[in-house]
Structures are given as structure tokens and as C-alpha cells.
């Protein structure tokens, strides 16, 4: 059984300006195996993958490929050997066709120097079919494909270039359930073709589904290296966080006697969602579950006034409201945490302080408009400590924080507004387990302070762990509202997939539909 490993890293060290990113990391990848690498944000996973793909050079340590030691000067060196990486946010050209993307930079030419489209199309179709993609997409522009298919096309590119080691960085983060299944089938096929796969993910369940080996990184050290069959989810979480985390975190609260804080009646916005009705009380945690593109964010954006409904009513504190902007809804006590913290939440080059105080600047200023910096510092410091944001001071730019801490900063800004209704759109997306748990605890704490919380999430275990009530949407329609007693994973998933009872819908082509395409029923 023992043969030369495909890739062997020994004692890799890497620091950035005094900060140690990797200290003595060793890792072995074998052909035909899926090797998962997990760890919290900032544990060193990305740095390690960049070293393997040649984008970074280690300070010390050995990289042995197929028995020979190598020093990569640039990514091209690694890709020549057959190492390919598909990043979390995939890089591709939206306006070019699939075949153009597949052969980008390595086009096949005829002897006279012109492009040999015939060969490229043939080989491209071959690569697509090898990972189970329909060959007819070869001429389509990337922009017409869903995010998941785009990701698969990039994997096909690696396959077409005969990659022997494929690095997948959080590949399922942007995929729907169905697309994830296709990806997993692809991974199985690649395994059979003797490709070695390094699989980075936050989603532990996936690791047990597809990986053979798992390596856990924490603060730049390897803290666990094991066969997947020899471990379990709790062990992994403990290794990642270095502390025990209970998975049973639900704290019951009594909100039944209260009047609803917000109720929505037959809300409809053509092309996005139709006939949505639900209500929420103070202290209640309401999860909005659905696949990407189900219309959940759009409903939230209508409540905060950034989208306008065509029909229906929003009743808040007993009165109909129709806010025209976030500024108006904030005035009412409705506060929204946007879906994409980088592009919608953060002022990236500004300090933690400036980010947290952004919403209350006017309130902490004197009559002539001067910001009271003592007050600003004290409000921000209080939030900074309460949320345990990991940073030396509040003056450093948020760009230098990890994803989880960045999310805490945006959440901190929301809390400065003392919300009555807090709408959290994917608050733990792409965040490490430790911070995720802290955010869950915080959500309970806020709910106990009479705040009503709408939690939009694509993470079903998360919804099940903390929500009192589940609103499930599918393609813009409300599929059901379940309370905690009647909800279970299977039922919610069925509703979210639009599957009623045993009549399984024919949705083979679901995968080819761009997720944000509008659905007119």
C-alpha cells in the first residue's frame, strides 16, 4: 500500500512582518485521496494553500513533489507540475464563453498561428463530460451559468490541464444543495482518476461525506491529523477551537403573550417574491430559510425600505409603515445586517472605530456638528469589549481583521442603534466555528433584551440550533411556517427545495439556472 506520496510538506514556516502565519506545518497528500484542511479563519489555511500553489514562498521548510524537492518561484511553476487551485471567489471572465475560459492562456493553435477552435471545443467537451457537466454549455458565455456551474467549469479547466493535485478553497460556500451534490460526484470521479484533492471547508458535515483524511490547523500549527473514519464532528470542533463547544445552545424564551412587533401581509414584489405573510414578536428569533435566490434578502430589503413592494402591507408596532430608505427604517428601530460584509457592510480602509460609530455620528455630535470624540470612543470601546473583537486597538483598519472579527464590527454598528427589530442576513457566512458560536450566544442575549430577530441563513443546522420559528421560502414563494416543535431538518429542506410530499419535482435543469434570475410564477 505505501507508495511515494504525491506531495509532502515538511516543517513549513511563514511569517508576515513578525506575525507567524505557519509554524512547522507538515502535510502529506496522496493520489486518489481527498484530504480536508480545516481551521478557523486566520488559522493559516489560505497561507498554506498559497504556498502549495506557488503564490507564496515559505520562509523555511521542504516541498517534495513525487519524491523530488522543489522551490516554487511563481504559480506557473506549480501549475506546470500539475497543481491547480480553485479559489473561494472563483476567477473567470464572465463575458467569454466556457471554451474560452477553459483554454485561457493555454490556447491550442494551428501551425499558422490562428486558434484551433475545433480541437479546443472537442477537448473542452471531453473535460466537461468527465466531471458530469452537459457538453452543450461549451459555447455559452460564463455569465449565463449559475455560480455553481461556473465553479465546476473552473474545476473542468483544472481537469483539462491534467491537474494531479486540485486545491478547492471553500467550494460549497456559494453553492446550492443540488450544486453541492454535483460537485461531490465530480470529486468522486476525480478520485477514481487518481487525482489528489485538498479540500478546505468550514462545513464539517461535508468533510465526513467526502474526505479520507483531515488536517486541522490552529494558529499556524497542525493540531490534528487523522483518518476521517477515526474522528467525529465534536473532536474536530474541539481541535479547531481548542475549547469545548456545546452543540445544544437553544435557550427557550417566553414571547407568546406579546403582540407582534412586525407583521407582513401578502407582500408581493413582481419578479422577486409573492404573497409573503408572517409575523414576529419581541424576543422571538425567526429563521428565514431557503436556497440562494429564494427571495429572502429581497423581503428583508423591502422591510428596511431599500426595495418597494408592489402589493401588500407591513404593520410595525400596530401601524402600517412604508419606509423609503434604510435611514427611515433605522429611525423606526429596524436595523439590517447586510449579506455581504465586504461589499455592503464594511468601510474597508477605515478604522474599527469609524466602522462601529458610522450609524450614530449625528447623534454624538454637538449642535455645530462636531463629533464628540470622547463619547465616540466610549460607545465604541464598550461594543468592542462586549463583542470581544480581537484587535490591539479600535484604531486599526478593519481590513486587517479576520472575517469573523469583521462581522462583529458590522454587528457592533447595528447594536449602537439599539434596534427593536434586528434583521441579520447570513451573519455567520464564511466565519470560523468559534466566532460563529459567539454570534449565536449574542443573538440569544439580544433576544432576551426584547429584541425581535429575523435570521436569514442558508445554514440549516444553524437555523435549527437557534430559531424559534422557521419561515421557509422557495423561488419567491412562502412554502411554510413551522415552529420549533414541528420543525426538523428533512421537512425544512423539502419545503426549501419545493418538494411537496412524495412528488419529487423534476429539477434536473435547476443547476443551469443562474441563481439570481427572477422567477415569474
Amino acid at each position: 500500500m505505501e507508495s511515494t506520496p504525491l506531495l509532502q510538506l515538511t516543517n513549513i514556516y511563514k511569517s508576515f512582518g513578525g506575525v507567524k502565519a505557519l509554524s512547522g506545518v507538515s502535510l502529506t497528500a496522496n493520489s486518489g485521496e481527498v484530504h480536508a484542511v480545516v481551521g478557523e479563519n486566520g488559522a493559516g489555511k489560505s497561507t498554506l494553500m498559497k504556498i502549495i500553489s506557488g503564490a507564496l514562498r515559505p520562509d523555511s521548510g521542504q516541498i517534495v513533489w513525487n519524491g523530488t524537492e522543489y522551490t516554487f518561484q511563481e504559480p506557473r511553476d506549480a501549475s506546470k507540475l500539475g497543481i491547480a487551485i480553485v479559489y473561494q471567489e472563483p476567477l473567470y471572465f464572465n463575458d467569454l464563453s466556457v471554451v474560452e475560459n477553459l483554454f485561457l492562456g493555454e490556447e491550442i493553435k494551428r501551425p499558422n498561428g490562428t486558434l484551433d477552435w475545433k480541437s479546443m471545443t472537442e477537448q473542452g467537451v471531453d473535460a466537461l463530460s468527465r466531471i458530469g457537466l452537459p457538453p452543450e454549455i461549451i459555447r455559452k458565455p460564463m455569465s449565463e451559468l449559475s455560480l455553481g456551474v461556473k465553479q465546476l467549469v473552473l474545476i473542468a479547466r483544472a481537469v483539462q490541464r491534467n491537474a494531479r493535485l486540485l486545491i478547492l478553497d471553500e467550494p460549497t460556500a456559494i453553492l446550492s444543495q443540488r450544486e453541492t451534490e454535483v460537485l461531490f460526484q465530480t470529486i468522486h470521479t476525480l478520485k477514481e482518476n487518481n487525482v489528489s484533492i485538498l479540500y478546505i471547508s468550514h462545513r464539517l458535515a461535508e468533510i465526513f461525506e467526502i474526505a479520507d483524511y483531515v488536517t486541522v490547523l490552529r494558529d499556524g500549527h497542525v493540531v490534528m491529523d487523522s483518518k476521517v473514519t477515526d474522528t467525529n464532528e465534536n473532536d474536530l470542533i474541539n481541535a479547531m477551537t481548542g475549547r469545548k463547544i456545546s452543540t445544544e445552545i437553544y435557550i427557550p424564551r417566553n414571547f407568546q403573550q406579546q403582540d407582534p412587533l412586525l407583521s407582513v401581509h401578502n407582500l408581493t414584489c413582481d419578479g422577486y417574491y409573492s404573497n409573503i405573510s408572517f409575523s414576529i414578536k419581541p424576543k422571538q428569533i425567526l429563521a428565514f430559510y431557503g436556497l440562494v435566490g429564494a427571495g429572502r434578502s429581497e423581503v428583508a430589503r423591502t422591510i428596511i425600505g431599500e426595495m418597494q413592494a408592489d402589493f401588500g402591507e407591513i404593520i410595525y408596532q400596530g401601524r402600517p409603515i412604508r419606509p423609503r430608505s434604510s435611514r427611515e427604517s433605522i429611525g423606526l428601530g429596524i436595523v439590517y445586517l447586510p449579506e455581504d460584509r465586504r461589499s455592503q457592510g464594511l468601510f474597508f480602509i477605515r478604522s474599527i472605530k469609524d466602522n462601529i460609530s458610522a450609524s450614530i455620528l449625528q447623534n454624538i455630535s454637538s449642535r455645530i456638528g462636531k463629533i464628540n470624540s470622547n463619547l465616540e470612543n466610549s460607545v465604541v470601546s464598550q461594543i468592542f469589549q462586549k463583542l470581544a473583537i480581537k484587535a490591539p486597538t479600535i484604531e486599526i483598519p478593519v481590513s486587517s481583521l479576520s472575517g469573523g472579527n469583521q462581522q462583529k464590527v458590522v454587528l457592533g454598528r447595528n447594536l449602537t442603534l439599539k434596534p427593536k427589530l434586528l434583521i441579520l442576513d447570513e451573519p455567520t457566512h464564511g466565519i470560523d466555528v468559534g466566532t460563529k458560536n459567539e454570534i449565536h450566544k449574542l443573538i440569544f442575549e439580544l433576544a432576551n433584551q426584547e429584541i425581535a430577530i429575523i435570521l436569514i441563513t442558508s445554514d440549516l443546522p444553524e437555523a435549527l440550533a437557534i430559531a424559534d420559528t422557521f419561515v421557509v421560502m422557495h423561488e419567491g414563494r412562502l412554502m411554510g411556517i413551522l415552529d420549533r416543535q414541528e420543525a426538523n431538518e428533512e421537512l425544512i429542506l423539502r419545503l426549501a427545495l419545493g418538494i411537496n410530499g412524495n412528488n419529487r419535482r423534476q429539477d434536473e435543469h435547476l443547476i443551469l439556472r443562474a441563481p439570481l434570475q427572477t422567477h415569474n410564477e
Partner: protein
Amino acid sequence: MIERFFKQSLPALLSNRVYFLIALLIIVLIFLSLISPYFLNTRTILDILRMGTVLLLLSIGQTLVILAGGAGIDLSVGAMLSLSGVFLGILSRTGVDIWVAALLTILFGGLLGSINGFTVAIWGLPPLIGTLGSMWAFGALALVITNGVPISNFPREFAFIGDGRILGIPTQILLVALPVFVIIYFFLNWSFLGRWVYLIGVNETAAKFSGIPVTRVRFSLYTLNGILAGIGAVVMASWLMAARPDVGSGMELQSITVTVLGGTNIFGGFGSLLGTLLAVLIVTLVASGLQLAGINAIWQLAVLGFILLGAVSINQLIYSLKAKQSGLSA
């Protein structure tokens, strides 16, 4: 010790645009005093800087509009300057008291600016297009109204602003440039409105979700630009004792040049008024120095271009050298 200063401290200092411009300003002063022995004299320098007042007013507004992002830019500042001046000339000719007329001119400038605010911030035209349109419209209007002939019947006492002195300091510096700069500097750096300008420039969407009234802020900045052009028109008319309908042509590009030379990011979110002030000082001193040296006026424009290209390139170079040293480029 000395080696350390030149290898580490100096590059670190100079990679900051403001310090870089201070160094450049000192070099310009030394150079000019070498060309002309009469130069290094407070009175001469103040007289020269007087020429920078109007450019400073326009550049302050330009800096704010660019800082607030969303591809913000105002190409119409020169045309607003010309048209406001013509407005002042007409009021004066019809017998309105000159000081009342001056006040009305500033308001008129604000009205012109609010037209840009409306088309760009509220209607949503790209700023480049919206203000390019108003640039042609305002500029042409100024020429049509006057038939291209300057209006020059201002009362003698009006010259006080452009040509007077208080305690030996030119009035337009003491009563216009200095107070306007100080007030807007305070506004940008200490007030919540100033912070809003920066935050909107960094991330418009995040600003919107944070409850910052993005549209209103941008509208106000374009309006402020008009007000500053109106003030500039009063200064200019008082100085020339005439309202020339083409007085502002070319100044829109000068104000943009000065703004980017001062270190403001053309895409917004980053920059400072101090940088803009220093850039105005440098450009004004160099222009007059070239005049002193008897160099053709056409060359002076080329020199402005060279300063911009040279200064920004050298600044970039120092910045990347510093980044390499501290390992940030890894």
C-alpha cells in the same frame, strides 16, 4: 544615525503625500529664491499667493466632490465661476448695491451648483456627463449674455476684496481664502458631515445601510461647489474690476489637477484638504516663478503637467520602496 534617517525615516515620511508636498514646496521656494533675489520676502510671497485664492476655492469644492466617491467630479466649476461673475456684473450695472450683489452672486452660484446636484446626485447621471453638460451650458450662457464682452462698471470700493490689504495681508487671503479653508477643514475633519463624506467615498452601499443620507450629502457637496464658485467669482471680479465671461475656462481641469496632486484618490474615500492646499501653493508659486523667469505662458501649462506626473510618480515610487522594505508587498 544619519544613514538611518535617509534609509528609513525619510522615505517613511515622504511616502505620506502631505509631507512629500511640504518637501516639494520647500524645494520650490529655494529654487525660486535662486532665480530672483527679490523673491524671499513675505510681501512678495503673499502677493503671489493671492493669485491662488480662486483656484483654492474651486479646489476645495472639487476635493470634497471627489472624496465622496461614486465617480464624483465637477467639470463645471470654471463655467460656474464665469457665469456667476457675469451675474454679478449685470446686477452691478443695474444699480444694485455691490455688496448686496456680491451676496446674491454667492447664492446664484449655489443655485447653479444645485442644478448639478439634481442631475447627478438625485437623477443619477454619471458625474462626468452631468457636469460636462452643465459646463457647456453655463459657459455658453455667460458668453451669450455678454456677447463675449467683459462687464466693467464696478464701483471703486469693490476693489477692496481683490486688491486691498489688512495689516499688510491681502484681503482676499485674510478674509476669503483663510476663513473658507478653516471652516471647511473643520467641517471635513471634525464634523459628522465630514466623516460621512469619507465613509460614502469608501463604500456607498455600506453607508446607505448605515443610515447615512448618501443622496443628500452628495447633493449638498455639488451645491457647495457652486457656492464656492460664486465666492470665487466675487473675488475675481473685484480683482480684475471686470466680469469676464471666460474667466473660469480651464479652471475646472486645474482644480482637478490640484486635487489629485494633493493626494485625493480620484475614486474617492481617501485624501485631505491639507494636501490640496499645499498643491495650490506649489502650483501658484511655480507659475509665478516661471513668469519671473520670463518663460512663455504656454510653457507654464506644460510645467503644471510635469509637476503632476513627476510628483505623483516619485511619490508612488517612494511608497512602493517603503512597502518593499517593511515586507508589505509579500
